[in-house]
């Protein structure tokens, strides 16, 4: 993508006296993790391409508190939540799209009880809607006929029952979407959730992401698709562990789509 997209913060929108269609909640991984930043830019490219006006909170965004909550620190979670809610409500935010299932789950399910009520969509849902409404179209594409497996992120799938949206997006690429043995309701975790991302695993005989990668690599896919920056890290590491990174790409659903957008 050579086109530069200007990213406008909510403060800038407000200064212009306008408000965008949606707030793009980038999330911590999407803001700071180098690999996840590429996903973030793909999402903004898609939004821009579809002509969606969007804003970000930029430096006013703070961790949703998800990892604190799952680690058992409800205090810190609620502090983060209430701080974020006062920012979001201050901008009178109605609709949020997120690039991370954890942010998505927390904003959508856990913020309302603390006074934050928004329509929250995961980016795979948002993109699926754009495709359905014809606001983006697909052309040619590098993935035609390629074997793609989708790894269900726990907080998107089991956590919120969203199994079809990411698959629908992959299907428009005319790829050979293959289901893993453990998929949808039975999908196996990547090993990062519940604050595991931030610590060494307990003693055992294998890492969870290795177990999952074995299952994935047994299918010999060209691409492992996912919709979560944490799954991204875990799956990328897993594929590298088996020295398969040149054969098997790990990509976010947004990244899959971005190169096939019809100009």
């Amino acid at each position, binding site marked *: 993508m050579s086109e530069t997209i200007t990213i406008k913060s909510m403060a800038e929108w407000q200064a212009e006296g306008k408000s965008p269609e949606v707030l793009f909640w980038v999330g911590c991984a999407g803001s700071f993790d180098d690999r996840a930043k590429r996903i973030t830019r793909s999402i903004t490219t898609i939004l821009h391409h579809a002509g969606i006006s969007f804003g970000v909170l930029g430096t006013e*965004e703070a961790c949703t508190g998800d990892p604190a909550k799952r*680690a058992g620190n409800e205090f810190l979670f609620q502090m983060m939540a209430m701080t974020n809610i006062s920012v979001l409500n201050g901008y009178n935010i109605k609709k949020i799209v997120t690039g991370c299932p954890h942010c998505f789950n927390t904003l959508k399910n856990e913020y309302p009880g603390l006074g934050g009520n928004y329509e929250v969509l995961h980016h795979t849902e948002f993109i699926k809607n754009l495709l359905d409404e014809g606001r983006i179209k697909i052309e040619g594409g590098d993935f035609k006929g390629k074997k793609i497996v989708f790894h269900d992120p726990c907080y998107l799938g089991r956590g919120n029952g969203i199994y079809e949206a990411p698959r629908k997006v992959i299907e428009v690429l005319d790829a050979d979407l293959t289901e893993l043995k453990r998929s949808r309701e039975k999908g196996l975790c990547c090993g990062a*959730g519940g604050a595991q991302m931030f610590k060494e695993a307990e003693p055992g005989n294998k890492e969870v992401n290795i177990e999952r990668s074995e299952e994935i690599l047994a299918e010999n896919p060209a691409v492992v698709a996912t919709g979560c920056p944490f799954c991204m890290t875990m799956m990328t590491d897993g594929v590298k562990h088996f020295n398969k990174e040149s054969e098997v790409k790990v990509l976010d659903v947004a990244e899959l789509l971005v190169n096939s957008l019809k100009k």
Partner: protein
Amino acid sequence: MGIPNLIFVVVFLAACILFWRNASKISRNIKLGMPLDRSDRKGERWRLMTLVAFGQKKMFSRPWPALLHFFVYAGFVIINIEVAEIVIDGIFGTHRVLSVAGGLYPLMLASFEVLAFLVTAGCVIFLIRRNITKVKRLVMKELDGWPKTDANLILIMEISLMTAFFFMNAADRSLFISGHPHYNVDIGFMPVSGYLAGFFSGWESSQLVFLERFCWWFHIIGILAFLNYLVVSKHLHIILAFPNVFFSRLEPKGKFDNLESVTGEVKLMLDPTLTPPPAPETPLKFGARDATDLSWKQLLDAYTCTECGRCTSECPANITGKKLSPRKIMMDTRDRIDEIGKNLDKGKKPGEDGKALLNDYISPEELWACTSCNACVQACPVNIDPLSIIMDLRRYLVMEQSAAPNEINLMLTNIENNHVPWQFSPADRLNWAQEK
């Protein structure tokens, strides 16, 4: 009323009273849990109970065991009509009182026999799966000792009860054919016992009567014993599965509850101008340390658990060799609340024994291995939520004991200071927009 009827009435009443007493204890134990409102969305709850508890919908994600289990379940429920007959006959000294149904009666009995045969076959296969082919989730270490014996006992009891039913019918039929005056109901050739009747061709009438009576008493005493056995067994699920599914959490699985006790304090922290509410009588406790800190629903979950291990077999931590097993979390919770109940019976207050669910039963190592992936919750055929117990215990570890692993503490400090779980500066949050 003859002597046998009197004995029957005494035995029957004694069994019912005993069951009532023990069931009341379980109900009292469950009520030791914290309050929780699950009285909303009744229609949805009835539908869920019909599908998941009655229809066993979630079982069918593994079709073969589900089918066998369905036979055993349906058989067991329907054959209880037969038990009703036994009870009436037992009290009034009648013989096969339901035969007033006329032509329908043999048909009904025949269908019971078919079901009883399926129950027997199912139980035999289940015994084989547990003891010979050793299906992994059914032979894991946490089942050593009583849980394993319990599972086998249930299967053997069911097979024995069904066998008694067949032999009772076979002896009855032979007695009818021989013209015995008391055995005057023609049940016809039954699909299973019909083939057994041949064995008894040379038997004296008195021997046949003895066999018939023996099987009859065995069947009913067996069922009464079974009823009382439930309270110490994982088999309690045949009753509790229904209320447990009814009171399921209806929210998306990813949603965790927001602790209300925390909300008040956080509001005060963020806005010091607010007037603090009066201090509560008992100091607030954050998270759960003992079984009595859990909600009544979590305790009901524990009593409902059938120890089937579907949760554990899908748990990523357990699959990769970690100590955590969601089934064990449920078994531990039941063992602990049972222990608290027994202490109460002896006049000791909860916690007076110096033990707790956390550490004495469930170790932090188990708790920290959980990825909160919800695979266990999804897999449980009776909608048990082991994850919520794990989270409540974690909350206690972190908020009451500051006992998180170091890396977790580091992550928490980062969130607090940098508003991001890693060591980055919050000022750099939008840098991605400038990068390529």
